[in-house]
């Protein structure tokens, strides 16, 4: 009923080419366009106006400039049909920013409790950036260690390769489209690391089980069977994980959208990389071991 027999391993070169192209595009986008960081990383002020009624973008911009904010940029943000604005400024003094937001809101005739004013000092951004990078490094190391102890180091290295693949593609997409990277996005990415590994580990788990006393087929064809065996689960899990975050992306406000977008991209890329990247690289690597080399030779025509 739900049996699959897709020749993933046989077509691994196609998947490698797809991944390689995506990664080259991602690196190119990162190098040429670069990432657009939120105020949290660079210092400044963001004012979220949730319900702006009939106020136009020009009026909004005018009001904030008049209230004394420097370098005002106004962007429209619509949540479920209700129009709002995101106002950015380079102002790093919270007192000035709050006074200005209050002034601007009365200027355009909006209530002052529909605002969110976030002001980040210039030094704090560095703090957030470095703590995010440390969190990333520690989390990768910890995962590497866990997988090495629980399974084997070849699995942990290939899992990390898949992971770097996911991060590069996600960040590349952010650079390409020009989406803003906020600490929320970084947090979502870190979480997605764990989650995309989750997928990879389920595949590895099955390979480990199936490779015990492997004699009747090559490692590669066993790997292909393993991937097929867990494919139904992979598809279902990816769908059931994606559904809530896609709904969040549609219904959520500004903060929640930040998380949801990064989660959607990360989940999709993670689901693909466990089958398209981690599994074949691991199988190729395993086939260099003498035991599996012999099996590969013996069943050369079977796979």
């Amino acid at each position, binding site marked *: 009923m739900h049996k699959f027999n897709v020749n993933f391993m046989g077509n691994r070169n196609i998947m490698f080419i797809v991944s390689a192209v995506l990664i080259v595009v991602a690196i190119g986008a990162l190098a040429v366009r670069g990432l657009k960081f939120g105020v949290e990383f660079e210092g400044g002020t963001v004012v979220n106006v949730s319900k702006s009624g009939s106020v136009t973008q020009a009026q909004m911009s005018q009001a904030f400039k008049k209230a004394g904010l420097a370098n005002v940029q106004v962007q429209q943000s619509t949540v479920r049909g209700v129009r709002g604005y995101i106002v950015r400024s380079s102002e790093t003094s919270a007192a000035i920013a709050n006074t200005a937001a209050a002034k601007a809101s009365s200027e355009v005739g909006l209530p002052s409790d529909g605002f969110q004013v976030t002001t980040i000092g210039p030094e704090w951004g560095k703090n957030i950036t470095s703590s995010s990078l440390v969190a990333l490094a520690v989390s990768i190391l910890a995962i590497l260690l866990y997988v090495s102890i629980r399974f084997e180091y070849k699995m942990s290295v290939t899992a990390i390769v898949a992971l770097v693949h996911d991060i590069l593609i996600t960040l590349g997409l952010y650079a390409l489209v020009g989406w803003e990277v906020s600490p929320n996005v970084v947090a979502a990415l870190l979480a997605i690391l764990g989650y995309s590994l989750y997928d990879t580990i389920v595949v590895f788990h099955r390979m480990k089980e199936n490779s015990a006393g492997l004699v009747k087929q090559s490692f590669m064809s066993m790997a292909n069977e393993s991937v097929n065996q867990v494919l139904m689960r992979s598809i279902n899990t990816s769908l059931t994980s994606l559904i809530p975050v896609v709904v969040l992306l549609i219904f959520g406000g500004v*903060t929640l959208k930040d998380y949801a977008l990064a989660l959607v991209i990360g989940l999709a890329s993670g689901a693909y990389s466990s089958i398209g990247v981690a599994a074949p690289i691991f199988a190729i690597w395993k086939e260099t071991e003498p035991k599996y080399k012999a099996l590969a030779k013996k069943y050369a025509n079977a796979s």
Partner: protein
Amino acid sequence: MDPKQRNYLLLALCVLLVIGSWVLFMPPDTKITQALDIRGGLSVILKAVPSAGQSANSITSADMDKAQLIINNRVNKLGASETSVQREGSDSLLVQIPGIKNATEALKIINTTGKLEFVDMSTLPSATVDAINTWEGSGAARSSAPSIPETVTYTPVLGGEVIKTANAGQSSGGTSAGQITVNLTMNSKGQQAWANYTRTHVNKQVAIVLDRVVQSAPVIQEPILTGDTQISGNFTVDEANYLATVLQTGSLPVKLEPVDTREVGATLGQDSLRQGVVAALIGMLIVAIYLIVFYRGMGVISVLGLGIFASLFLGLLAGLSQFGVFALSLPGVAGVVLTIGLAADSSILINERFREEIGFGKTVRSAAASGTRHAIITSADADIVTFVSALALFAIAVGPVKGFALTLMLGIACDLVMMLLFSRPLIMLLGETLIAKSPALWGIPPEAIAARATTGKKGGASHA
């Protein structure tokens, strides 16, 4: 204990936990504490920076304790309820003032530089002196303390930086024994200047001024040569403690700068929460429909599992809220939504493995036992990896993303409990009876059962 008894026991335990959870979290909007980004208010992270001439690592834990006390005093002055000032990391304070109306004013008060001075009253204009004396005469209430107008310039006798310690105490000996006093000691530079000044100014008034606001205006009784000064007055214990804290602000070797300021309007926060809850509910509903359509009876078990997961999760959040260690923030809501997928995944792993093992020719009964065991091991491994990333994020990251990491970790814990106390025992119990009788109803392909009958690997007979 035989497995059947054990499974009934586990299910009973699960039911108890779910009932307990409902008691804890109903109604959720009051039982689960909401963070500032949801209920609205002002949240400021103040980072301590060393004042000029101090090295960066000179900020000690004692300095931060003092800073916390000072900020707490300032925040309390605002009169808002449920304010909190917490340490965040080694050099920052997190100030939270829920439901504040005038954030601009609050920011001004929090951000005052904390400049403490001793001012010779005779150098102040007479209008100011009169105002101070009237205030002192009328009980010196903190809320109505007069300030020195910005237009007045003056040279302080001493700056607060000379003060080494300041404590509230009781005077001993003399006619004033037992009176509550504030005692302070000074460094050598202060001792010298204070001795020179007090020698020539006995019976004169000195105003203790913090950021131009008069805190006290004692009269010098006698020359103070050692710097050890006792301020007496009709202090209550609270007043004396407050004055001691004020006096310590001068010796604070750090400056506090607002580095992360968030002001959230109350309606905006509630709107965001509603959006998050709606998204979570719709997401769960679609996942539930999907699971039932795809796995039929096993899907119903999965959906019940999701319900139990959600109950335990909400109960845990409400329980932690009660101890004051949890507040749901928007990033936290994102974490909750992500864990819905996680919980659904464990059920999918179980269902797929269960089907597969029957396909291999196992009896429903043995597939129920070994399939759930294998699936839980796989799921636990995967859970641990997600948990590790969340833990790293929680321990290292700063600011609001901590809330995301926390709910993610709690969700993973609830997922494991759900699998062990609900999914596995229930499937094992049903596997012996209902599922074996009508496999199609439970989403088990009939050909899988047929395959077992023909190959008869593990023997259908043993299941009789």
